[in-house]
């Protein structure tokens, strides 16, 4: 999901990648960012967040930058930014298509 072979990103995936655009983030900050950004429309369960961070790390979309006790901070990689941009372009195209029909 995300990228040509992945298919579209799910909403939680999209927002988690978005959370890293401006700065490095740890788990709690990501959860707060997503809740604030979506006005609680998208909620991140700890299982979903944990699974996503592991998956994104495995796929090289994010990388760990700092470990402070239990707190782990991550940042977006170039590949992660490209995947996010690709999804953004796809969503824009969808939106344009819809607006043309209205």
């Amino acid at each position, binding site marked *: *999901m995300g990228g040509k072979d992945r298919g579209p990103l799910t909403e*939680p*995936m999209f927002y988690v990648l978005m959370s890293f655009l401006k700065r490095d983030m740890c*788990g709690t900050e990501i959860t707060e960012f997503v809740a604030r950004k979506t006005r609680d429309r998208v909620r991140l*369960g*700890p*299982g*979903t967040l944990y699974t996503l961070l592991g998956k994104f790390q495995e796929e090289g979309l994010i990388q760990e930058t700092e470990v402070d006790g*239990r707190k782990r901070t991550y940042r977006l990689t170039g590949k992660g930014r490209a995947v996010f941009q690709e999804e953004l372009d796809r969503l824009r195209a969808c939106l344009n298509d819809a607006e043309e029909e209205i």
Partner: protein
Amino acid sequence: MKQRETLIRKIIPVELFDMAGLEHWLSDMAAQGLHLVKLNHDTARFRRGEPVPGVRFGLEITGVSDIDRERNAAYQEAGWTYVTTLRNLYYVYRTERVDAPPLHTDPALQSQQWNKLYRSARRGFVRDVFLLVLAAVLTALLLEDTPILHLLTTSAVPLILYGLYQLCSLPAAWAEVQDLSRLVRRLEAGEPMDHRAPYPRRRLVPLLSFALCVLLIVLLVLPRYILPFLGGGRRPIGEVSDFSPLSLAQVEGQGYRPYEMEDPDQSDYFHYSRRNHYLLCWNQWEVFQAGQADLAGKLNWMQIDWYDIPAPLSFLSAPLAEELLSKSMKLDEDIWWTDQEGGTWQVSKHADPRVKFLSTARKERTLFQTAAAATGGQVVLVRYTGHGDLSEYLEDIIQMAEGGTS
């Protein structure tokens, strides 16, 4: 000294893949004051405490390790406390906080985890089918040559029971695979998982299944690795306690000289009896005697195999005797036996009201003879190479088949 805590054990009333049912049940237990401590594949152990209504449980599919501390810390921050791990299946978390978010909020992502479980269940099903086929093939191989003898004296019966158990388990295993497949499809479609589902009060299947598994393991190990050592090894022929063995000296007549060991301190390999135990034939005797008669290079010997058949299987005694006789005549490759000498076997059947089967056989123009007899409960086979004629000792053979010592 620290006192060991008493835990309450309960059988899990739902299938383990029924996550919603399991979470619901654990919540209900907590509401009754039973707080989960340990979860096994069939049972759960609880500590008794104050009832806490509204406790929620969350199950997470396990990773590579039994305890994932990093994950537990992340979940703790969100209000979920790690409780225990169900090996190779779930991490179990609980929360009393009403505002704690559900563990998973992305069904499509969750479907990838469950898909792994689905594939694992599917592999398990294929493995079960393979084991069933293997059990069937092994049973067929075991029973191929002398089916009744092998049924009574090998692991064939536990193997058949195991095969039947596997066969009975397959429909439930397939239903589980199908349930998982449906769940994965629902998650892929974006439908979130349920966290509450009705469950039965009791489920005896795991208990029965566990008991059957233990029984099967015992039955498979017992005849192969334990029973053979209970018979006591070689012993003097006079110690045969269940029947009076026909004596080689008696059949050979005057001039019989027993074969003697060169070293009298050595165990006598030429005159001995041995008792064997089998699952379905608790007492089986083997009696061997050898003499020094001049038989043109052939050993003068007699072997008696005696079988005690349990009453419910007494209908097998006559077929077993017939099978033993037939096998005995085919044992051309046995170095102690007919030495691949030419000639055909002449079989004589004898009628006697005391036995269900009585027959003697002699390989024409040779010294090789065999006889078998069966009553309701005992079967005897005699193999003999010597000057005598077994058909003259039918009375002794019948007495052996009837059992009891004179």
